[in-house]
């Protein structure tokens, strides 16, 4: 595009990210740090991190944002954050607002990453280190990414059940069909890890607003049709899994029909120990946001370089560093080690008093 971008950073743009990805960072200069883009950067205590968050209407996102807040406090860097209420256009605007406030590092996360490409790129053009909280895989612009691959997570959602080599009738409950690329990739992963099972897929439903009540209705319908012959209901998140289990509960089938979810909600953990839900996926918990935030800061300061990370590809086709963090399947067997030991929830919270 021929945007009249500010002259200062104009020339450096196309190569800088790619450069830093393939070449080791320059030696720290004597008079100050040389950072991620080969230029002098601010001292750590002067850094401002901007976080652009998509929603606070789900527990997971509230929690992880809180972790980021804590990390910044611990590291002594300033943090400002904004929440876009699942509106991509609004999020694009908020990224502009963050950049306007003079942030140095941007951490963004969005349902429809493609829709914030322009804003991300503009932020980069302003010299901001643009980090995307999840893998971009060509969907949007970023200088640094991390997290777990949507497709892989999708696989993890159904992995435990898939490994059981179940047979019989199964049904899928997916998220909101208007939810963007992630939802489609989750779906692919879920289906793939069920490949080995010789099952009959008796239903697939997309759920407006990821509404648990709607998911409950779907589950009831299937129970009505197939009753005991239903083997599993594979849900894309824990809220909907909760709805499905409510329906099973009503039919006296809870614990008999296998249900899985993702996000590691407290209620899901409780159900797992009670045996009504097979598994959930702890994608991030408190560890990932912490590691990712720290990695962003280190990468910014040049303390770590592309060589320390894996790779991902952004929407400009550039290879960028990727801090891999695999999701963890949480089951009854490992919940103590994964959830409770990680401090996600207390033993009392999960097991009740």
């Amino acid at each position, binding site marked *: 595009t021929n945007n009249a971008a500010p002259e200062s950073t104009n020339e450096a743009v196309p190569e800088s990210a790619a450069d830093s990805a393939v070449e080791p960072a320059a030696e720290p200069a004597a008079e100050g740090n040389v950072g991620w883009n080969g230029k002098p950067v601010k001292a750590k205590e002067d850094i401002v991190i901007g976080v652009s968050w998509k*929603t*606070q*209407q*789900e*527990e997971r*996102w*509230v929690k992880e944002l809180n972790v980021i807040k804590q990390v910044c406090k611990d590291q002594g860097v300033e943090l400002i954050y904004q929440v876009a209420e699942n509106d991509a256009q609004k999020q694009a605007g908020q990224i502009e607002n963050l950049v306007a406030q003079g942030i140095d590092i941007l951490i963004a996360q969005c349902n429809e990453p493609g829709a914030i490409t322009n804003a991300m790129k503009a932020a980069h053009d302003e010299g901001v280190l643009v980090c995307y909280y999840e893998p971009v895989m060509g969907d949007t612009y970023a200088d640094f990414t991390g997290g777990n691959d949507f497709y892989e997570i999708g696989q993890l959602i159904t992995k435990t059940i898939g490994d059981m080599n179940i047979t019989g009738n199964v049904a899928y409950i997916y998220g909101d*069909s208007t939810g963007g690329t992630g939802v489609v990739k989750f779906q692919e992963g879920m289906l793939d890890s069920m490949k080995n099972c010789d099952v009959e897929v008796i*239903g*697939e*439903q*997309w759920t*407006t*607003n*990821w*509404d*648990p*009540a709607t998911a*409950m*209705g*779907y589950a*009831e*319908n299937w*129970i*009505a*049709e197939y*009753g005991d012959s239903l083997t599993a209901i594979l849900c894309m998140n*824990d*809220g909907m899994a*909760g*709805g499905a289990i*409510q329906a099973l*509960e*009503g039919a006296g089938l809870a614990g008999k029909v296998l249900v899985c979810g993702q996000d590691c*909600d*407290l*209620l899901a953990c409780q159900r797992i120990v009670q045996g009504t839900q097979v598994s959930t996926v702890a994608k991030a918990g408190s560890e990932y946001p912490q590691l990712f935030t720290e990695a962003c800061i280190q990468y910014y300061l040049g303390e770590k370089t592309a060589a320390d990370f894996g790779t991902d590809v952004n929407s400009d086709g550039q290879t960028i560093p990727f801090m891999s963090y695999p999701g963890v399947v949480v089951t009854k067997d490992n919940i103590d080690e994964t959830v409770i030991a990680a401090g996600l929830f207390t033993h009392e919270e999960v097991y009740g008093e």
Partner: protein
Amino acid sequence: MTKTKKKVDLFALFYQNSLVLEAIVIFGLFQIFTGGMFLTVRNLSNLLMQGATCSIIAITMCLVIITGNADLSAGRYLGMLAMVAALIQVNYGSVPSIVVVLIVFAIAIITGLWHGFWVGYMKLPAFIITLATQLVFLGINQYISDGRMVGPVKGIIAEMGNGYMPSISGTHNDTTLILGALIIIAYIAFTVAKEKKSIKQGLSEKNWMKLVPKMALIAILAAAVTVILYSYKGFAYAMIILFVLTIIVSYVSNNTKFGRYVYAIGGNKDAAALSGINVSKELLKLYVLHAVVVATAALVYVGRLSAATTAGGNGYEFTAITGCVVGGTAITGGRGTVAGAVAGTLIMAALDNGMSLMNLDPAFQYIVRGGVLLFAIALDAYASNRKARTVQAV
């Protein structure tokens, strides 16, 4: 003197029974397309449960629309109340459920007064007022919940959403059979008595030929539903709540001053005001009643799901409004019945249920829903235009 036309008016016949016909068409199609899955014992029971929340909202939403107003906040409002109930239950486990219910109703009354104040006394357009307040409700919900899904709920709230009538014998849903039989007997007795009185008053011709088949149809339907539910799990409390509220509000709307005034305000606000009706006060009452009914729906909702979310209730107001319109409530006010609104909402629920049984692509589900709504409103408008033309414009 108006003469009664002897020629059979096919359209009128169709229109008067459009809801029944729609139901038959929809039920029939689904029964075919789902390979007989739709009209199973269990599915019909499910359908009633799935439609209960929005149908309860529709009970008073229809009255609000009849007065020429609207409530766009009902969905978010329900979500907020559900969250309040869940939070109290989870965080203060020692508070008895019944107290939680009372707290929710208390909040409902306050918000009802608030809406009634703006719409009734300040005479502001309900559309914008409720648009504004729904933002506020969402904000409050988000603030108190912090985005978490909160649950589980217990006690009578859980029962309201999820419980079924207990059984005496312990093996059969005997209470359901008994209740069903009582309802049918009461219905027949009531209708016959009413008709006899009508005939005595000279308001009806002795036309048992017409009434008896209708009565029989309804009685058979009720019996069928009873038997169906009996052979599954019996009456759920949610269904009983829906049924009882429908009967009560329907009865109130037809047999009390308040009900009369609701229709009068919707039919002609100015005339109502000159007939000694305190329009502001009646609107205030209506919004309070509506808030309490929505609160009941919220309790059923949270009880059924056993958890509340920040996004809860999103869009339910539109489902309820749609149901009212499909059930014959005139969006311009003045016309409509509670029973029709509930039936319309249940039909929309049946639509959702059937389409999900068919595993229809979500894209088509949206389009079908829009199409049914468009059809219903066009039918209604066409029918009332025809009527208007025959009204003498003196």
